[in-house]
């Protein structure tokens, strides 16, 4: 499991495949009738906001890069919608050894790289070597920690060996796209980051890169050698780079762009309206994604932390030398702040309904999610004031600002500048906390400054940001004491109970056992409130109605691009204009 | 043979509350080969007179009277500054050398080029002929190193040179009448005399008519055939040079002559009492009366009507007959 900053998403796995009637906001047009003859051809234009940095799975970070990589490359297997089983891709089958220490993959033999070279087990072994090469610094390296070796038995058989028997062995093994050894082995790992391959990738996926015009368009053409016969159906997929959000939506409306992801909830409302009233061919698509937003409280005193670092103290020093934060060191204060916020109002205002409430650390898309395990702090300003009074915070001088020992309750709340949603949340939080006499100054910071300097140094009061979550719940980078000094553990949360539960959950023999510990973790964290969880976001996307058989769910939108197709009678100018 | 007749020329600037009269009732005639000196103190309207003959006054100036050029019999109504006839006259019949000669060159073009531009306008000829003609002109105005001057930029010319090149420019169009505004006034007296001598020679050679605007009476007496004395935008006296030298008819002219004589005889120069009136100030009657020793009541109220002599010559003074 991985948590990442600023919407750097891995694959999305989610549980609730259709949110349709749950929120009742719009009706999905269901999949195209199955008896319909699928017709090949046509063009899909996808509007993206930023130029992909690299179409090399080793270096791709942004959502758009990852989407293109999904089209160009393949994995051994893709996870199923139930998050339990896997669909074979480059591997046609696999078996787990009886002692649970090895997985043997049997590869397809009809697969060719897009340059015509056959795909073999050498590529799988080579990819593993790249994944674990520290010089490459692949960001998913953690997945491969439990793998002891990957060996090719023959051209079509690969054996993965593991150190320990984990529940995640299969998903660890298939994580990561397979790279072409015959091309990349000639490039030294140091030079991979700057190699031409990143701009002219060769994969095994359903589409292959045709052209990349800087900051304008990236064109992918159908891979005629694709291993699943008769697929893909679309002739080409064009990524059009449109940095300005307004421009992007406008082109979507004008039909120049067919698919847009991560639409602002407010704009999404308009798309829903138009679709429901039949004014537009743009189909709204929404599903619970991977992102949630929260307020992180700095639980320790920044100065004592700095001193501790300066003295070069070890982790143990946490217990003895670091002072709790003068404001947020107390659980009661954090609980009071949580109760003082009308989180439902915040959620609805910034998300226009395109979010669900979140009260604890486990993301609702995960199998281990259990709403009942969380302690819920309902909006209750009176109770918040009571909690604060118990901690000594009262408005003793009548200036409408709470104070304690003559010190007013004032703090700065940081967030990333340019993130419309978080800026709004900060502004609303300021207004709502002002109502109970707490003076908050929102400060919007450059991401590099926020994540590169202030958070790692734990030099802040409170911060509004969001995480993007992965397949399995793993909160240790955020809350476990072993990660106390790492940049992601910025709240300075420390609990021996948590450490224990965290380790138990990880090593639990089966899912049911693990579930018990995750419930306990949820209860503990939602009580301790190192974060005040705000809401869990729904992904808002839109696609032109002529595209059929798009399967979207928690895993995301790019689950079956090779199956997407357009009926002949709905083809548009752009589907016909391109010469073969 | 008469070349130019100026009749009742007047120039004024209308303003919101009043009208400023720059020139009033100017009349004179000019024969071929004749040199007319226009005399007057600064601000009396000499330069305005020159420009109005060329039709070059600013748009908002109002003009009246008429100009007749007898070469082609053109009569120009001065009411209309934009009279297209001016286009046929400027350069080809009348040309002018400005007081600030350096400022009258376009700083960005070579002297030769500027002369050729004039030639192109007025004299048809091949480029080579034009260049030869230009060099010839430069030599004609007394510059020896003509080829060199031809290639010079205006700012590279010395004061004397720029006077001469300006003259060459004015002569390039082969005019019948040349107006020179304060010629060579910036030069020392020796260079000035040389220049004026050259001008006279040129005139004699080509039968050119000259209007010299001068403030130095001495120069006027030496180089002109007839003189036009101006004061406050009016013509006071217009007569042959010899007549004026012997018997100045107007008290103002007499005063000027007296000052000149006193200078020549190294006596202490006499001065005309009072100040030169501003052109913007309207003086009723004879504008000279505040400074005139002979003034009487009528001078304060009425401008004296001209008393005519031969050839349209005249004097404007209430006391002319009395004093004679």
């Amino acid at each position, binding site marked *: 499991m*991985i948590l990442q900053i600023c919407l750097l998403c891995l694959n999305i796995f989610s549980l609730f495949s259709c949110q349709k009637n749950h929120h009742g906001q719009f009706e999905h047009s269901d999949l195209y009738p199955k008896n319909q003859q699928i017709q090949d051809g046509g063009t899909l234009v996808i509007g993206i906001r930023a130029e992909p940095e690299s179409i090399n799975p080793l*270096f791709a970070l942004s959502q758009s890069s990852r989407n293109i990589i999904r089209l160009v490359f393949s994995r051994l297997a893709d996870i199923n919608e139930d998050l339990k089983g896997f669909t074979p891709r480059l591997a046609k089958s696999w078996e787990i050894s009886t002692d649970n220490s090895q997985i043997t993959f049997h590869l397809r033999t009809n697969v060719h790289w897009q340059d015509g070279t056959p795909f073999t087990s050498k590529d799988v072994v080579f990819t593993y070597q790249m994944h674990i090469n520290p010089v490459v610094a692949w*960001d998913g390296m953690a997945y491969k920690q439990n793998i002891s070796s990957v060996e090719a038995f023959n051209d079509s058989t690969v054996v993965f060996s593991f150190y320990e028997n984990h529940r995640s062995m299969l998903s660890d093994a298939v994580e990561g796209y397979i790279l072409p050894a015959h091309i990349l082995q000639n490039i030294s790992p140091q030079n991979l980051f*700057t190699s031409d391959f990143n701009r002219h990738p060769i994969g095994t996926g359903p589409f292959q890169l045709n052209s990349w015009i800087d*900051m304008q368009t990236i064109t992918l053409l159908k891979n005629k050698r694709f291993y699943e016969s008769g697929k893909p159906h679309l002739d080409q997929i064009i990524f059009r780079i449109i940095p300005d959000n307004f*421009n992007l939506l406008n082109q979507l409306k*004008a039909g120049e762009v067919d698919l847009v992801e991560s639409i602002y909830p407010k704009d999404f409302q308009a798309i829903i309206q138009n679709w429901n009233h039949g004014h537009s061919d743009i189909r709204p698509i929404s599903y619970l994604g991977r992102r949630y937003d929260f307020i992180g409280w700095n639980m320790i005193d920044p100065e004592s932390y700095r001193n501790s670092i300066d003295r070069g103290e070890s982790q143990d020093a946490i217990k003895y030398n670091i002072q709790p934060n003068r404001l947020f060191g107390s659980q009661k204060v954090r609980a009071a702040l949580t109760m003082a916020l009308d989180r439902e109002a915040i959620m609805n205002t910034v998300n226009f309904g395109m979010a669900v409430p979140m009260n604890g650390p486990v993301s609702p898309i995960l199998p281990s999610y259990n709403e009942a395990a969380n302690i819920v702090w309902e909006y209750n300003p009176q109770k918040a004031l009571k909690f604060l009074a118990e901690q000594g915070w009262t408005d003793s001088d009548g200036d409408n600002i709470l104070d304690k020992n003559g010190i007013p309750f004032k703090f700065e709340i940081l967030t990333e500048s340019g993130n419309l949603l978080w800026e709004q949340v900060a502004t609303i939080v300021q207004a709502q906390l002002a109502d109970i006499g707490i003076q908050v100054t929102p400060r919007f910071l450059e991401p590099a400054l926020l994540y590169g300097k202030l958070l790692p140094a734990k030099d802040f009061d409170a911060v509004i940001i969001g995480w993007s979550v992965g397949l399995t719940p793993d909160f240790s980078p955020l809350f476990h004491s072993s990660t106390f000094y790492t940049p992601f553990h910025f709240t300075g949360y420390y609990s021996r109970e948590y450490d224990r539960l965290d380790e138990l959950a990880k090593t639990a023999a089966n899912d049911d056992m693990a579930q018990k510990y995750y419930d306990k973790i949820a209860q503990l964290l939602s009580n301790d409130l190192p974060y005040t969880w705000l809401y869990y976001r729904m992904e808002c996307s839109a696609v032109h109605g002529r595209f059929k058989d798009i399967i979207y769910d928690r895993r995301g939108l790019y689950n079956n691009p090779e199956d997407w197709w357009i009926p002949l009678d709905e083809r548009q100018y752009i589907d016909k204009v391109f010469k073969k | 043979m008469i070349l130019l007749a100026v009749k009742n020329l007047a120039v004024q600037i209308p303003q919101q509350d009043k009208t400023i009269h720059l020139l009033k009732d100017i009349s004179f005639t000019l024969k071929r080969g004749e040199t007319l000196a226009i005399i007057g103190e600064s601000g009396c309207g000499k330069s305005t007179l020159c420009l109005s003959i060329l039709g070059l006054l600013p748009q908002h100036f109002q003009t009246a009277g008429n100009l007749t050029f007898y070469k082609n019999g053109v009569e120009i109504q001065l009411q209309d500054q934009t009279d297209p006839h001016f286009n046929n006259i*400027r350069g080809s019949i009348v040309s002018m050398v400005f007081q600030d000669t350096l400022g*009258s060159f376009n700083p960005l*073009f070579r002297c030769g080029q500027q002369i050729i531009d004039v030639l192109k306008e007025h004299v048809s000829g091949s480029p080579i002929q034009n260049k030869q003609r230009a060099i010839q002109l430069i030599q004609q105005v007394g510059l020896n190193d003509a080829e060199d001057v031809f290639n010079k930029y205006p700012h590279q010319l010395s004061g004397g040179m720029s006077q001469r090149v300006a003259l060459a420019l004015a002569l390039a169009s082969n005019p019948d009448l040349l107006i020179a505004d304060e010629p060579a006034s910036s030069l020392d007296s020796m260079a000035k005399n040389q220049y004026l001598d050259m001008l006279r020679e040129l005139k004699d050679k080509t039968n050119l008519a000259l209007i010299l605007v001068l403030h130095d009476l001495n120069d006027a007496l030496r180089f002109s055939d007839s003189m036009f004395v101006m004061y406050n935008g009016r013509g006071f006296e217009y007569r042959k040079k010899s007549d004026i030298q012997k018997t100045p008819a107007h008290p103002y002219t007499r005063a000027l002559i007296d000052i000149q004589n006193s200078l020549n005889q190294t006596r202490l120069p006499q001065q005309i009492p009072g100040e030169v009136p501003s052109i913007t100030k309207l003086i009723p009657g004879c504008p000279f009366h505040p400074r005139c020793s002979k003034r009487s009541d009528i001078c304060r109220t009425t401008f004296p009507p001209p008393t005519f002599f031969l050839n349209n010559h005249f004097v404007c003074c209430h006391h002319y007959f009395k004093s004679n």
Partner: protein
Amino acid sequence: MLNGIIRRILSAIPTLLVGITLCFLIIHLAPGNPATRFLNPSQTAATQEIIRERFGLNQSLPIQYFHWLKQVLFHFDFGYSFYNGKDCTEVLISALGPTIILSFWALVFALSVGISLGIFTALRADTHVDRVINSTMMIFLSTPAFWLGLMFIGLFTIHLNWLPGSHLHSLYYDQLDSFGQLLDSVRHLILPVFTLGLPLAATVFKYIRAGMIDALQSDYTLAARARGIRQSTILWKYSLKNSLLPLVSLLGVIIPALLSGAVIVEVVFALPGVGRAMVTAVFGRDYPILMAGASLAFFIVILFNIVADIFYRILDPRIRNSAGGL
């Protein structure tokens, strides 16, 4: 004259160097860390160090600087983008194309509109037409370019749907015949060129009109008229050349303004130019791109200053012939 030009070029070198050094300091001393992008909880400290090493950020600032300078001076190598590992020279060269196209047409537009309207109104100084054009130009001079662009997009792209509001070409540009391609490019360029060109045209207009009025009221024009030189010659040969003089010196001002304007216009109209590359690089703290872009911008500005000086020398003999000059 040649001597003067060489001296001018030599004297620009220290200017360039100081400017670039200042930029290097500004960029590298700014708070924040470009490696932040690559942070990841699963990384070990060693991996993070490898990433820093990959970008040369593990070295001290002077070493980074001299290394950078050496690479630029001896190999013309501006390094690789932190963002995508692309060669900075390539990135900028590919981004320079659209910027040059945009700036060129904006300049052509500004000069043609500015000069013709400037002359037109100078000949009609203080008439109603003059006043109307003058005030209109004053408005364009004071309009923020981004607002103008936004309003253009709002009106012509969204409301009227006449012209595209982004990109250099349509998606199906490659499928068009050559006339269609030309038309397509023109349609895409109209709004950005207007947005960038209008304020510039107003500047040019201001200078030409003033210069023209000055020239037309000057003694040499009066003298030329006295010599009987035709009005058209006076206008197109004499006055125009004189009024172009201040414009040439303005070239040194226009080019930086053009570059600054291009930043905004490229962002608003999603054009793949240097300006947009720079804005993206600022947000992403892509140091090598920023350095390469800043160096390029400096170089262009200084180059055009020199060109302007040379033009000025050619046009104005007074400077050309003065000893040393400049």
